[in-house]
């Protein structure tokens, strides 16, 4: 196992290096640069040129590449061109918000989706299966911004149960008497609508994967054996069938968890949630190379590492798998 993990980690390093290079090339191939796109008549060509030199964008592309590799190897991703702050600081300010919302959403969707998928498979062909499967298909194919705006309009504007958007209430955060729990409750209160949106969009995919996997498992001989032994239906479902149907779902959840740090530009935009997804879109659209490269690097690293973790987890979940 140790040998396998070390081998996988070595592969990850090689892939990361390739990604680093591809990212660098892609951003340099994209037309324009951060200075050219500042369309401000008050900016003279001489000022633009001076700024380009100061930002090091006038250096030969190979020199820029070597500086970039050196910075990445030391964990220094440089300064965001537009924020003027270290990239790590910009990302760190937004990343926890994204993790809080999106990772919670993935976990919640996965838990509910798996649980309902199991029930749907168990009651295949009955009304419960039909309702759950249709609900999963319908919600999974909804257009996220539309659903999000609909929820905001109904629950925030018409019913006034929740705030329009945002992550916190200024009234609470500017109140010197507000303690940790009040602030935490405030964040949770603001999370309800975005979380509901993400849940509705995502639970269906887990439900369908689990249902399909479970249906395959239910055809296995050991299920017939369990029935022949006279075990309770509930025990057969939960202790014999479900655990063996988990494997494909684990891959799906593992990757979703990894991608959850990517956030979602649409969700974050509609709910004014200050996360990494919007930053990523902003960085790419504004040619903020250091920020965009660092965001993609972070996502790549987490996804690659989570793949390794999922593979290792396979062996733990299924004792038949050995590396």
């Amino acid at each position, binding site marked *: 196992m140790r040998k396998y993990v070390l081998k996988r980690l070595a592969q990850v390093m090689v892939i990361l290096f390739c990604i680093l290079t591809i990212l660098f090339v892609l951003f340099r191939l994209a037309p324009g640069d951060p200075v050219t796109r500042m369309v401000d008549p008050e900016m003279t060509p001489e000022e633009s040129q001076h700024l380009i030199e100061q930002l090091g964008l006038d250096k030969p592309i190979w020199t820029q590449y070597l500086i970039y590799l050196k910075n990445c190897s030391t964990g220094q991703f440089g300064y965001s061109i537009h924020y003027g*702050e270290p990239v790590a600081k910009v990302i760190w300010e937004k990343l926890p918000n994204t993790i809080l919302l999106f990772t919670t959403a993935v976990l919640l969707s996965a838990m509910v989706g798996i649980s309902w998928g199991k029930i749907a498979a168990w009651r295949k062909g009955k009304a419960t299966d039909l309702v759950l499967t249709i609900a999963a298909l319908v919600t999974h194919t909804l257009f996220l911004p539309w659903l999000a705006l609909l929820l905001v309009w109904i629950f925030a504007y018409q019913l006034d149960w929740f*705030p329009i958007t945002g992550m916190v209430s200024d009234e609470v955060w500017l109140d010197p008497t507000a303690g940790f729990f009040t602030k935490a409750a405030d964040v949770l209160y603001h999370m309800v609508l975005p*979380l509901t949106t993400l849940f509705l969009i995502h639970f269906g995919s887990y439900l369908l994967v689990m249902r399909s996997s479970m249906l395959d498992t239910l055809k296995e001989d050991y299920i017939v054996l369990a029935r022949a032994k006279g075990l309770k239906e509930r025990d057969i479902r939960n202790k014999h069938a479900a655990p063996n149907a988990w494997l494909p779902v684990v891959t799906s959840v593992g990757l979703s968890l990894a991608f959850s740090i990517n956030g979602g530009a649409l969700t974050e935009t*509609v709910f004014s949630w200050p996360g990494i997804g919007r930053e990523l879109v902003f960085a790419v659209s504004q040619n903020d190379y250091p920020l965009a490269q660092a965001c993609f690097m972070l996502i790549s690293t987490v996804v690659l590492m989570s793949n390794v973790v999922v593979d290792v987890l396979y062996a733990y979940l299924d004792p038949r798998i050995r590396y």
Partner: protein
Amino acid sequence: MARHYKFACFTCKVVAAALLAVVLFGLAPASQAASNGMLKVGVLEEPKSLNLWLASDAWSNRVLSMIYQPLFVREPKDSKLVPWLAAGEPVYDAGKMTYTLKLRPAKWSDGTDFTAEDVVFTGKIIKEFKIPRQSSKFSFIEDIVAVDKHTVRFELKRPKAIFLTRTLTTPIVQKKQWEKVVAEARKSEKPLSALLRQAVDHPVGTGPFMLAQWKKGVFVYMKANPYFFGKGQVIEGYKMGPYIKGIIFKVFGTADAAVLALRKGSIDFYWNSIQAGYLDQLKGDSDIKLFVSKKSGLYYLGFNLRKAPFDDMALRQAVATIIDKEFIIKRILQGYGEVLYSVIPPGNTFYYNPDVPKYGYGMNHDQRIKKAYEILKAAGYSWEVPPVNGQGQVQKAKDIRLPDGDPMKEFVILTPPADYDPHRAMSGQLIQEWLRAMGMPAVSRPMAFGALIQKVKGQHDFDCFILGYGKLSLDPGYLRSFFHSAMNKANGWNMSGYESAAYDALATESNNAMDLNLRRKMIMELQKIVMTAVPYIPLYNPTIIEGVRVDRFTGWVQMLDGIGNIWSFCDIKPK
């Protein structure tokens, strides 16, 4: 394995219970804004930076304009420059080419005195570091001298008209706060870069508000500056506040959310132009008042005069005749905009020239076609099927030929994509159709903004383009930048490549003219020259529509570019 299952079920139940608790018991307070003298302003983005020298986006400038103040500002009525941190008009000594200026007694938000040393320091660092967007305002200044604590003297190398309009409207920073930062930046190999990377967490300014708290990505809280120099004074007829305790800038990701928040009462003012699509619902809301203001904007079609057939003035004039700007305003801007005939918008009342050639003015579709046909025919163009037949009736034209008999090659009108600016993208489509009616093989092509700018400004690799400026300076110095031959270079502002010795001479002279009325005459003449040669066809200038709630605050001051201005924030009062 059953352990995992039980754990999953348990976690699921805990999360569900927590969410239910929040919903049922309403742990958080109601989001309805209570006034308490605190103005809530909705914005679409938070500031990118509070480093004045780095910030170039409109959202940062909204916050920074409350903190850092210039010596002169535009007054609301006629947009004339009036003393702000300055105590009066500058005294010009033509012989020595110096301006001497008295300063108002004022304090910084940390309670220390604002002095001439701060003005000198600001000017000197702009020159030394060649700060983008600022250094051209100081490049013609030889020296800045603090004559005494409240008097400053600017010594000019040569006369420059923008001294009054742009140099004196530069925000002033506090020497005490910045001198350490500047000293550190000087030690760097790349001093400007080091200066721009300075984090300014607590900006010290002389403005009516000061930063109190910035919750990144969510809100910026500014409280009234107790040391604001204008407090209680009457400036331009306004008794200055601020009369409110503070401003909270709340970030909304979309206009949909911001408009809902305005209607719900979560914010008092949405500081952005509201799109026409929202107006019907807002007009029916008695708690909301809409302000429709003129803007200093210019949206235009530009030609590449470096290549045929766009180097032909007759063709450009014919294209200008065909374009129905009224139709663009009516159909695309839904009536919220004004037609432009000059490169200076009418809102700039002092410099706007209403007597420039107005191509197609007052004509209907057929009259435009006939007029354009007349211009092109006189210039030697021919058609396989002309746009006007022998009986003088307009018909669908086919295959226009250049004066040398060659068929006109397909050409492209580059526009920003619809998700960046639907107005420009749709205008491109309309213009394409109008040109095709004349037999011209035009194709409107949306292109990512960065790529478009690089093609047009950097590489000059284009035929035509539609671009615009949402907030042009009221100083018309940009006329020189846009059309002077010295700016016809890669990344220069003369994107069309227009060249005229007469224009160059007059543009340079106008930029050096210190007599305002003389300069005005020259600017009027420059507009005539440009609109005769038409390297740009000015299209439209959208109006700004802003919405405020009327139930909590009153006293908004409307001026060019809307009600989001320093006069409003110094004048509004809780009801």
